[in-house]
């Protein structure tokens, strides 16, 4: 094909633009990974909660920090019409005694054997009512050099509590913190001490009928509900953070489109004479533009294919405190967008090609 022959003949020039496309793609993918990493830090465990709806206290504005549910309210929610499965979940931020510089962690109290139980990765499950034991997130054990059978000491309300790690899970961060999952009874102890009248949960996870988000608050006064996705988006800063990452990625794509567009436009201007010859011997403008599109497509694909492993290697080399996460679907979408913007970038060249008069082939010398 003419387009590929030209790519090969001018390989030096095209390698240069290929390098630029690779760098633009690398930049876009890294921003994409940063956006995904920040979102993951915000609380992928929240988004991944296995429930149709999460029921909060109605004065909490879907806040995991503010919501507190009394025992009677939890019982009413669990008994509400349409609820087939339910489980209380408690969240409290605690500070491990060892390596405090790594910051506080989320203690998530769940009911063993219900929909709030995280999927076990290693070790054993918690038994119903088992206290003093936790399932630690894999990041928690990796960052702190811990393993199954080790004990950890955490402080809450100026008191120290000891837990044994009996298993690990991989549900992701919860509210910008690495979680450890324990019994709901331990959550109560950590957050409220021995007060028998204290709230018993942060929220209740419910599954069953399709309209639980609307029906449960209607049936149980003093509650409001949202899907896990809505709850995740209501985490303070998540929308602004994602908007920022998307905007930076958008700028990266726009700059990439302009760089590719300008390069191919200059190349088109240099080739006006050759385009005139092609058109003089019968090539249509569309045929000539197709060659350009094919070249842009090939160069962009090569750039993307090189940038992808480069991104993955970089993400793996950077320390884990840099929030980077390569999500296949998001990276694929960014790659498709990059291809699309590259094609948009050469539309001006298409306009120039259409205006080349084949008459210039007569009298010119190459």
């Amino acid at each position, binding site marked *: 094909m003419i387009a590929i022959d030209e790519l090969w003949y001018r390989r030096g020039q095209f390698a240069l633009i290929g390098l630029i496309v690779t760098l633009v793609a690398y930049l876009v993918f890294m921003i994409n990974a940063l956006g995904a990493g920040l979102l993951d830090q915000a609380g992928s465990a929240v988004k991944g909660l296995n429930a149709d709806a999460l029921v909060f206290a109605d004065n909490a504005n879907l806040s995991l920090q503010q919501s507190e549910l009394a025992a009677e309210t939890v019982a009413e929610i669990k008994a509400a019409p349409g609820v087939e499965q339910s489980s209380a979940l408690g969240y409290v931020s605690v500070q491990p005694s060892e390596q405090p510089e790594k910051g506080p962690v989320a203690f998530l109290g769940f009911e063993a054997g219900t929909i709030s139980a995280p999927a076990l990765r290693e070790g054993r499950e918690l038994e119903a009512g088992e206290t003093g034991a936790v399932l630690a997130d894999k990041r928690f054990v990796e960052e702190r050099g811990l393993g199954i059978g080790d004990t950890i000491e955490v402080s809450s309300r100026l008191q120290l509590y000891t837990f044994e790690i009996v298993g690990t899970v991989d549900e992701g961060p919860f509210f910008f913190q690495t979680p450890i999952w324990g019994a709901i009874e331990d959550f109560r102890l950590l957050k409220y001490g021995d007060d028998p009248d204290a709230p018993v949960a942060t929220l209740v996870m419910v599954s069953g009928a399709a309209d639980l988000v609307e029906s449960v608050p209607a049936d149980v006064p003093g509650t409001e509900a949202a899907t896990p996705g809505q709850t995740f988006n209501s985490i303070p800063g998540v929308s602004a953070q994602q908007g920022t990452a998307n905007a930076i990625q958008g700028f990266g794509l726009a700059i990439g489109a302009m760089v590719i567009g300008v390069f191919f436009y200059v190349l088109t201007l240099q080739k006006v004479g050759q385009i005139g010859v092609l058109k*003089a011997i019968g090539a249509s403008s569309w045929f000539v533009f197709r060659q350009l599109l094919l070249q842009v497509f090939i160069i962009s694909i090569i750039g993307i294919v090189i940038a992808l492993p480069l991104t993955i290697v970089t993400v793996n080399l950077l320390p884990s405190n840099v929030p980077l996460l390569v999500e296949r679907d998001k990276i694929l979408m960014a790659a498709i967008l990059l291809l699309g913007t590259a094609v948009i970038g050469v539309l001006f060249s298409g306009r120039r090609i259409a205006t080349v008069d084949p008459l210039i082939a007569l009298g010119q010398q190459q």
Partner: protein
Amino acid sequence: MTPNMIVTVDARGISKTYGDGENAVQAVRSTTFTANAGELIALVGPSGSGKTTLLAMLGGLLTPSEGSLTVGGVALTAEGNSKLAQFRRERVGFVFQGSNLLPYLTARRNLLAVAEIGGRTNGDPKEVADRLLDEMGLMERAKAYPSEMSGGERQRVAIARALMNDPALILLDEPTANLDTTRGRQVVEMLQSEVKQRNKTALMVTHDLRMAEYASRTLRIEDGVVTEV
């Protein structure tokens, strides 16, 4: 004209005017002539006489302002751009002044490009390209890029390219302008042989009257008016 002669070009009273009103310039004036299959016609005339305009009209790069023009059975008086492109793909072969081969294609690929853009070849394009290169004595240069070839070789490749789509009319714009006399003669002799052998019509614009000697007849154009020499 003998009874079996095939008329390739039938121009009747064609004119070409650029601009309008007081700025109008008539480059070709009321020209009538025919060209038949098997003829190599030389078109001579001073600079600015209208040679290029006439060549462009015959090749479907311009349409006449007045008169009727039929080339290879296609009336070119009022064709649109895409129809003209199709006409050029199917009925015309061009040989430009500086060969104008695509610099990023080898000799063989320059020929195959004609098929790639949609030109119809008389048989498998690769076989046709190889046969033409062989006839032009260029088989050993098939993989050479234009920058690696001599001027004579480039013009022979250009002639082979012009024959790829088996055209009714071959138009040559000063094909020997950049060649020394010996190579110029070789190229025109080759062209003359191809025209006779394939029963094609060729119209060659030239300043060099020595090259015009190879033509079966010569047309002279001056101030846009064509006369038979």
